[in-house]
């Protein structure tokens, strides 16, 4: 009897608890939010904070990459899709065919920094130089082609580090720096994550690569970028990305199905509000406008 009671009591309590949660869940609106790995940390922070603002709305966040989020938007299985690149026209057509109407919201900016080894004497790089290094048919394959000699890089060869070809970062850098028709050169080392790019460049004197500013470390150098040779260059930072003076800053996007309404509209408005934008800023990304955060 004693044994029975001692097990029965917590069991009953557990039952009560789950039923209470079930009642709660029925009242709660669950918003499905999925996509970009660049945005996933911010999205999670937003979801957590919003739980305090409105306890009746639960935001379920998952990553998987921009492609995954956009695919879910096309299939209509998600309320908000996160993306670090714009939807392609083909994808929008596919979504419309399936009855979805993706609406784009810019929720922040991310500067793509060009990383070089800390030994590298280069301080500023122009778009033309970047093209010569990264683009197919580009003329620079050795650091001396750029007029540089890098200590520790005996072979003088430029080791170009890139990303796998379905990453949003890859797509944005290609379009922004190499141009609409431009393509990456053969033989770039295609890393699977932003962090892998930074790790490799940090250890390799001959290397050059690109990744989101949020991944920068103290042991790596970021080039100052100018659109035209001779023009004043701009260093990548949260503020230069925010005021759009840094040339390789990409918008971070959220897609909703149609103009947002109801709870989703409230959430999107909150994300774009000062509170939401400060959370984004604290994670190392640039807000869409000037906000003062503490």
């Amino acid at each position: 009897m004693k044994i029975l009671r001692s097990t029965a009591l917590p069991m009953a309590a557990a039952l009560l608890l789950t039923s209470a949660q079930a009642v709660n869940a029925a009242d709660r609106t669950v918003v499905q939010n999925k996509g970009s790995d660049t945005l996933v940390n911010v999205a999670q922070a937003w979801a957590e904070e919003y739980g305090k603002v409105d306890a009746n709305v639960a935001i379920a966040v998952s990553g998987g990459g921009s492609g995954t989020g956009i695919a879910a938007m096309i299939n209509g299985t998600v309320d908000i899709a996160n993306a670090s690149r714009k939807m392609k026209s083909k994808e929008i057509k596919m979504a419309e065919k399936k009855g979805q109407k993706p609406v784009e919201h810019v929720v922040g900016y991310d500067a793509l920094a060009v990383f070089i080894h800390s030994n590298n004497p280069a301080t500023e790089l122009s778009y033309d130089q970047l093209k010569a290094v990264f683009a197919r048919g580009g003329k620079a394959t050795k650091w001396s082609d750029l007029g540089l000699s890098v200590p520790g890089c005996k072979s003088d060869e430029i080791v170009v580090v890139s990303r796998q070809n379905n990453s949003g970062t890859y797509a944005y850098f290609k379009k922004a720096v190499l141009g609409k028709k431009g393509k990456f050169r053969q033989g770039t080392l295609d890393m699977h994550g932003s962090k892998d790019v930074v790790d490799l460049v940090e250890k390799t004197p001959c290397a050059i690569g690109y990744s989101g500013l949020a991944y920068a470390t103290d042991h790596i150098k970021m080039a100052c970028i100018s659109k035209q040779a001779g023009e004043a260059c701009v260093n990548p930072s949260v503020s230069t990305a925010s005021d759009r003076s840094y040339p390789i800053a990409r918008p971070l996007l959220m897609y909703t199905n149609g103009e947002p309404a109801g709870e989703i509209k409230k959430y999107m408005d909150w994300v774009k509000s000062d509170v939401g934008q400060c959370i984004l800023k604290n994670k190392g990304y640039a807000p869409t406008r000037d906000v003062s955060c503490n």
Partner: protein
Amino acid sequence: MPEASSTKLASTADFDRRDLDWYIDKVVQLIVFFAGISAIIFIIGIFVFITMEGLGFLFEDFTFKEFFLSPFWEPSDEDAPEYGILALIAGTASVTGLAMIVAIPFSLGAAIYIGEFATGKVRETLKVLVELLAAIPSVVWGFIGLSIMNPLIIDLFDVPVGLNVLNAGVILGLMAAPIMTSIAEDALKAVPDRYREAAEALGATRWQVIFKTVLPAAKNGLLGAVLLGVGRGFGETMAVLMATGHAVNIPGSLFDPVRALTATIAAELGETAVGSPHYQALFTIGIFLFIITFLINLTADLIVRGIRKG
């Protein structure tokens, strides 16, 4: 009438023998039968599945010339996607080739030592260790390539990056060697002792017995072992993904980074939209890999069987 009743009687007697054990026997027989043919069902199922997924690409964007002869692989480009796998084939082939150069002497030497020289405890211990080596997960090998071989190659050869053909080839060679050793040792064991005795009776030295008698007699089995190693090299993914540097490139030297067919599928499939040309192109690479490894394994199997019969 009496005749009919007697047959009826016989059949009831028959029925009586079908007790519980009889049914268990039948059920187990059925289960074993399905387990036996499941391999065939799975292999056909897998082939049908990857073919269906890749079919759309084969009919629309696929051109034989581009797919097999162009070194440009850029399937995610919006305006002008490129689907050339020549550089990927070159990557896989160069890494597998180097792996065989590394693995063949190692595994042959190990097989000859275990099969012909070692006795007693040494032999048993070595056999267990070789099996153990074969059980190391490929991601661990990849990690060794990434964190030990990479700085080592940079230091030794003064090259900018250590993730290249050399790194992946050595790693893959070490991975394939244990399996090749096991099969090669079986092949040596299959050579009847009377061959060795006859050779020794003619006054051959130990060296001569092995190189002039045992190895030629085990030739087919050894070739089978090598081919299975090649199959392993073609199919390996994780270690190759981590150690090659993952760069679409036709290698000009051992120190060039490359990219393998398998690693391309592994790295890209997760983020492509299901049913898109890129997705289908990856499955077409899958079909190609499937056919290649199937042919290699089939040839190896036929060669090994050939020696058993002959």
